[in-house]
């Protein structure tokens, strides 16, 4: 063991599926790596792995986390290094096994080992509250709850928050509100950020706007946070800010408001009047 401080272990979870856990894990991990931290991502969704796809590393997997705990390989052999960022790597899930192939104790062993060499260990949790979730949470001391501003997602997030609160090892948890649509929120057609924070009584880690660039990034296997240049998508900025906040920086929340230009308003007016 080195004299270096142990890495922080953060689980990304949500309860409901399809709200952006894996996307958030990939982007926050890449965001932290971009800042120079040594980061490892762990996919605990055994049987339904996807983090490899989002990272664009699906073709480079040789061993997985189940191979490690069943001692078919060494931990270092199972880590897939990201070629774009040498300080970022992935510990993939097994695709041909199920959640029972891993126990919370084994997770703790693996994570304990990884903590010696990495600044951040991000654990992507599967949906649900069963064993997969228990495995994912077992070794974590911090949690990120991902939710969208929809009733079903917020309800499941509430359930997850209740379970996180019951775990002594989890010292802090925060919310990422994903797929935020400022236009619908302003029209009172959708719960806004404050509504969700009030209902869940939880602290906010970040707001991610609904952004097509996320789909494009997924298709390319390149997390949106990796885009560089002057004109990056809003989601890129949002994930970069989240990474900075996790690293301890005080970054203000993005202003997602894009008021409609007056020209458009006048056009709409005449369209309606002439109809």
């Amino acid at each position: 063991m080195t004299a270096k401080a142990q890495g922080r272990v953060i689980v990304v979870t949500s309860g409901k599926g399809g709200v952006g856990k894996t996307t958030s894990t990939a982007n926050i991990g890449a965001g932290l790596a971009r800042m120079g931290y040594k980061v490892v991502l762990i996919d605990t969704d055994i049987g339904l792995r996807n983090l490899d796809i989002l990272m664009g590393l699906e073709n480079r997997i040789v061993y997985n986390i189940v191979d490690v705990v069943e001692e078919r390989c060494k931990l270092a052999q199972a880590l897939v290094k990201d070629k774009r960022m040498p300080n970022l790597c992935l510990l993939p899930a097994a695709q041909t096994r199920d959640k029972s192939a891993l126990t919370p104790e084994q997770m703790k062993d693996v994570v304990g080992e990884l903590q010696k060499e990495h600044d951040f260990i991000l654990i992507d949790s599967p949906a649900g509250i069963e064993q997969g979730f228990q495995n994912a949470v077992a070794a974590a001391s911090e949690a990120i709850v991902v939710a969208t501003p929809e009733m079903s997602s917020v309800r499941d997030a509430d359930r997850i928050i209740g379970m996180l609160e019951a775990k002594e090892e989890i010292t802090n948890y925060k919310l990422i509100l994903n797929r935020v649509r400022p236009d619908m929120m302003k029209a009172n057609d959708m719960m806004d950020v404050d509504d969700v924070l009030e209902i869940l009584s939880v602290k906010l880690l970040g707001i991610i706007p609904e952004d097509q660039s996320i789909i494009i990034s997924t298709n390319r296997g390149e997390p949106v946070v990796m885009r560089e240049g002057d004109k990056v998508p809003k989601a890129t900025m949002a994930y970069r800010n989240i990474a900075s906040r996790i690293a301890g920086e005080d970054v203000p929340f993005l202003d997602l408001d894009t008021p409609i230009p007056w020209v458009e308003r006048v056009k709409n007016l005449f369209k309606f009047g002439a109809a």
Partner: protein
Amino acid sequence: MSTQSPQQNKLVQWWVGLLNKLSTLAVQPAGISPEVAAAEQDAAASAKEDAKNRLKLVLMHDRTKLSPGLLESMRDELMQVISKYVEIDQTTLDLCLEQESNTIALVANISVVRSKEVAASS
């Protein structure tokens, strides 16, 4: 209106449409077509408020692990007990969960007609 020519009628409609548009323009957000927005406004509460209210209720049941069915049977038993002592208006008996800052309260609202003793002596 019936005395107006079709052309005049159309003009009036156009102006009414324009005025409606103007009155809602200030509060209309981007991304929603005027037609949809107008239709949505007819609904008593906004979709946002609907979601909030429904969600708050669901979460109270989730957090207390009290299902609406359980509340119902609790209501029935409460009614039997209370009816032993006072005459109550059973139609108005209302038992529900209410959020009070950090705690969830079980609130019963019962209309008392009179106490049983008074009812017996009269």
